[in-house]
C-alpha cells in the first residue's frame, strides 16, 4: 500500500477524516467548556464562541459520517454499514469499532437534543449534554485502538496533544467552577468591574449639588397614593 489509487482512496479518506474528526471533537469539547463557564476567546464575542461550538460539532459529524462510509466502502476489510451505529457488529476489529459506534451514538443524541432544545426542559437537555464527557474518551480510545496510525510518530504527538488540551480545559473548568460567584452576587460584581474599567465617575458642575436629598417624586412607590 504505497500511494493513493482508486482502490486505496476510501482507506486513506477514512483514516484522514478520522484524524480530523478527533481534532474537531477535541476543539468542540474545549469550546463547550468555555461556553459553559462563559469564557471568552480573544477577539470573539461570547455568542460567537457558542456558535463556533455548535458549528464545529456539526462539522465533526460530517467528517465522522465520511469516516464511517469510506471505511465501509473500502474493500480491503469487510465492515457492514450498520457497525457505524450499532456497536460490536463488525467482524473486523469488533471491539475498537464498537467503541467508535458508541461514541457516535452519544454524539447523535447530543445533537438531536440540541436541535430540539426549545421544546425540551433545560434539565433534560443538560443531562444529555453531559454525555459528551463519555463520548470523547470513548472516541479517543477508538482512535488509538482501531488502527496503528495514531500509535507512533507525528500522529501520536497529535493524539497526545488532543488529550493534553482536553485535560487542561477540564482542569480550567473545575477551577473556574470552584471560583464561581453565587448568582445573587454576580450582578453587583459585574457592575463593580464595569465601573472599575470606566474609571471613577465624575460629576458635572451644577447650581444644585445636593444629591443626598430625595427627589420630589412619590415617596414610597409601594404605598397607595392619592387618586383623582
Amino acid at each position, binding site marked *: 500500500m504505497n500511494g493513493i489509487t482508486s482502490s486505496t482512496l476510501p482507506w486513506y479518506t477514512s483514516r484522514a477524516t478520522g484524524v480530523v474528526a478527533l481534532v474537531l471533537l477535541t476543539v468542540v469539547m474545549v469550546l463547550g467548556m468555555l461556553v459553559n463557564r462563559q469564557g471568552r476567546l480573544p477577539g470573539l464575542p461570547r455568542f460567537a464562541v457558542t456558535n463556533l461550538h455548535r458549528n464545529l460539532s456539526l462539522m465533526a459529524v460530517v467528517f465522522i459520517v465520511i469516516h464511517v462510509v469510506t471505511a465501509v466502502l473500502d474493500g480491503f476489510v469487510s465492515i457492514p454499514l450498520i457497525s457505524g451505529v450499532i456497536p460490536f457488529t463488525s467482524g473486523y476489529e469488533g471491539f475498537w469499532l464498537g467503541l467508535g459506534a458508541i461514541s457516535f451514538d452519544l454524539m447523535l443524541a447530543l445533537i438531536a437534543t440540541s436541535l430540539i432544545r426549545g421544546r425540551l426542559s433545560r434539565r433534560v437537555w443538560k443531562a444529555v449534554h453531559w454525555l459528551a464527557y463519555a463520548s470523547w474518551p470513548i472516541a479517543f480510545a477508538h482512535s488509538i485502538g482501531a488502527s496503528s496510525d495514531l500509535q507512533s510518530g507525528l500522529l501520536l504527538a497529535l493524539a497526545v496533544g488532543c488529550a493534553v488540551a482536553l485535560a487542561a480545559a477540564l482542569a480550567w473548568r473545575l477551577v473556574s467552577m470552584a471560583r464561581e460567584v453565587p448568582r*445573587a452576587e454576580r450582578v453587583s460584581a459585574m457592575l463593580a468591574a464595569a465601573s472599575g474599567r470606566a474609571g471613577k465617575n465624575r460629576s458635572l458642575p451644577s447650581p444644585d449639588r445636593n444629591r443626598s436629598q430625595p427627589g420630589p417624586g412619590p415617596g414610597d412607590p409601594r404605598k397607595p397614593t392619592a387618586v383623582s
Partner: protein
Amino acid sequence: MSAPQGQVPGPGFGPDGLPRLLPPSVNVPEGLRDHLARHGFVPYRNARRQLIGDLEAAGLTGRGGAAFPVYRKMAAVAEAGGHPFMVGNGAESEPASNKDMSLLWLAPHLVLDGLQLAAEAVGATEAALYVHEVEAGPLGELLRRALSERWSARIDRVLVRLASAPPRFLAGQETAMVNLLNGGLALPTYAAPRVFARGVGGAPTLVQNVETLAHIALVARFGPRWFRQVGTAAEPGSMLCTIHHADGSARIVEAAIGTPLPELIGADLGPHGLDGGTRAVLIGGYHGTWVPAVRAAELTLDNAAMAASGGILGAGVIAALPANRCGLAEAARVVRYLALESAGQCGPCLNGLPRIAEGLSTLSGPRPSPEVRADVERWAGLVTGRGACSHPDGSARFVRSALAVFSAELRHHEQGLCSAASQRPFLPLPAEVAVRDEDWS
C-alpha cells in the same frame, strides 16, 4: 347597581363614564357590602368558557403591560385540559407604577370577582393572588380579610391563596411568578413550556394582571357593548395610569384608551409642549421609551400611537421629566437599577447591562469621549432578544430612546456642560438591591 350612563347601562361616575374601576369615594377601600350594593352579585356563568366569547367581543387586552388579548390566553388554558391554576398578578414591580396597588387597596372585591370569574371560565380549581410583600402591612391585612369574608359568605367558589412577591423588578414576570408559587426563587426561566401549558404545580396556568381581572368582572356584568363605549375601536376600554407630573406630584388616573396625552399630564406640556416646564416624557415605565415633550403633546394613550413612534404603553406609567433635570443623569440612575435587578442568569443581561449602565453613567458626566455613546448603542443592540425574559430587550429600548431624545444634552456634556439646574433625582427608585438568594424569595 350604579345609575346607567350612555346608551348601555353600566358603572361610571363622570359624564364620560369614567372611572369604571375605582370606587366613588377616593382613598377609602370599598368593603364587601358597598361593593355588592354598587355592582350586584358575582355573575357566575355556571359553565366553562361562557365568558371567553364575551371577552373576545369586548376586545379586552391584558393591562399588565403586554396588552395581549385576554380571550386568547384564557382559551389556551381552557383547551389545555386538566385542572388549571388561576393567578391574579398584582406584583407591580415597576417602581414608577402604583396603579395595581391602588386598585387592590381601593376596590379589592372587584379584582377578586374577576379572579373567580376567570377561574370559572377556564375551569380552574385552585387560585392565588400574587402581590408584593403582603405577609404583613395594611394591604396584606385588607386582602386577607376580604378573602375570608368572601369565603365565609360563599361568594368565592375557588379558594384563593395570597402569595407574597419579593421586591424585585422581575418578580412580576410570569415565569418568575410560577417559580415562586412552585416553592422556588422568583427568577425568570426559559419560555418553553409556556405557563399556560405547564405552570403552577405543572398545571396549565392562567395569569392575568389584577386590573385586567377588574375589567373582566365588569365585562361579565355589563357586557362587551358597554365595555366598548370608551376607548378606540382597536383598543377598547379604559386603563389605569400612574402619572408623574413635572412638579413632583403623582396620581393614579383611569383614562379612556386614546385620550390625548396632554389631557393626562395637564398643563405640564403647555399648548405646544414648549412651555419649558417639561423636558421629556417617559412612557411605559423603565422598559418604556422617552419622548421629547413636543412630540408627547401630539400623542394619544394607545398602543397604536405608541408603536408608530417606536414605543410601548406598557402598564401605563407616564412621567414628565421637569426641564431643570438632566435626562442623561435620570437615565443613568434607572439603567443602573435595571442592571442591578438582572437575575444574573443569562450572559447578555449579566454582562451587558452593567456595561451599558456604566457607559450611561460616563455619558451623564463631563466630557465623555465620543466613542462611549457608540459603545452603549452597540451593546444595547447586542443584548436585545437574547435573554430568557424580556429584561435586556426592555432595558435596551429605554437606553436607545434616552440616547436619541437627550442627544442635544449629550453634546452639552461633551463640551463639559449640563443644562440641568438641579441634580436631585426625580424618577422613583427603590433604595435596596438584592444581594442574597433569599432576596428573590
